């Protein structure tokens, strides 16, 4: 089913004990062919204990370091273990497992290095981007010179070139907008595909107003800095 590609599903998780078993269960049931790696980013609920019983591969550290670093560690694991393709999805259950193949197909066909799932690419969806998402998308579209309809999407797939590069240089913090800039700067071919999304199963987004402000400041800095960085990311 996978052809000659080894595919890893990467799920960063912080305090997602309520929804993680359902997400993993759905993956097992519908996409039993995919390996699953959960990166537990210093959860303080019982996510960590749960992992032992879920039958997945997992990484864990005791303190929270942010979703960007969790994803980077997962990509480093994928690169080390020889996976060709990596799909990232959220642990809160907002992404549909059946959309995974929509993300993987262009990678398998060699049509892109990165496929980004967008919740807003189709105009007849009930969900609309917020004003912040809309203006951030417009700004990123202008800088990267390709349409960015969902700048904060956490559902994407990477091909081998992107896995190797981002295992070293995936941005930390709240990384999704910065990722767009990085991909553009390093001339990786990016494709957006339409995905569905639903409300998260449990809990709330971890993006509190204070964090949002911090993330905004970081994105603003990245907008200025990243286009001037060397190719292949930041050289030490």
């Amino acid at each position: 089913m996978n052809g000659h590609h080894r595919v890893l599903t990467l799920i960063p998780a912080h305090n997602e004990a309520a929804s993680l078993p359902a997400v993993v269960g759905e993956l097992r049931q519908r996409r039993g062919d995919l390996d699953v790696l959960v990166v537990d980013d210093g959860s303080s609920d019982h996510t960590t204990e749960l992992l032992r019983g879920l039958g997945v591969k997992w990484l864990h550290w005791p303190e929270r370091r942010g979703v960007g670093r969790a994803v980077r560690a997962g990509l480093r694991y994928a690169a080390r273990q020889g996976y060709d393709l990596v799909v990232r999805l959220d642990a809160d259950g907002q992404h549909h497992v059946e959309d995974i193949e929509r993300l993987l197909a262009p990678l398998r066909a060699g049509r892109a290095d990165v496929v980004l799932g967008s919740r807003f690419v189709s105009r007849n969806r009930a969900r609309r981007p917020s004003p912040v998402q809309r203006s951030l998308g417009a700004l990123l579209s202008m800088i990267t010179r390709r349409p960015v309809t969902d700048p904060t999407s956490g559902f994407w797939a990477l091909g081998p070139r992107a896995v190797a590069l981002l295992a070293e240089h995936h941005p930390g913090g709240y990384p999704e907008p910065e990722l767009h800039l990085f991909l553009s700067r390093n001339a990786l071919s990016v494709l957006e595909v339409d995905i569905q999304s639903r409300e998260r199963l449990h809990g709330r987004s971890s993006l509190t107003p204070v964090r949002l402000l911090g993330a905004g400041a970081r994105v603003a800095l990245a907008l200025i800095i990243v286009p001037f960085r060397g190719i292949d990311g930041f050289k030490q």
Partner: protein
Amino acid sequence: MTDRVQVVALAGSVLLLVFVLELVRRRRLAEEYSALWIVSALVLIGISLRRDALDFAARWLGVYYPPAVLVLMLVAITSVASLLFSVILSRQQRQIDRLIEENAIMAAELRELRWEREATARGPAIRPMSEPSLSNPIAAVSASDIVVGATDSGVKARNH
């Protein structure tokens, strides 16, 4: 011709130099981070001794009171030092990040190797989907039944 501020500045600069060198001698300050402080102390000593250099700098900068240039220099030195510390801090954070990630990956690889070893010891037919644990009592019971005949490391793996 000396005035009091010059004596105090000289004494302070010499004390700074001695203190920095002592910290290096006791290995409390790494050599690579001591350079900024040693150079700063030497510059301050030089300026404290050569009043005319300070006067010249003050005239050039348009400062009416020459010892104010000393204060200005101290502010400049501390600013450069804090910027340097931020750079060092960032580098160390990057190194710690890398270590945490490498450690997590190695722990996962070790865990997976142990599963494989235990599975091989049990035979392929009853290979479990997961490591036995409290949150999965069925797996824990079946594994403890089987592991009796397994190697010591298998038992250790179960108890970690």
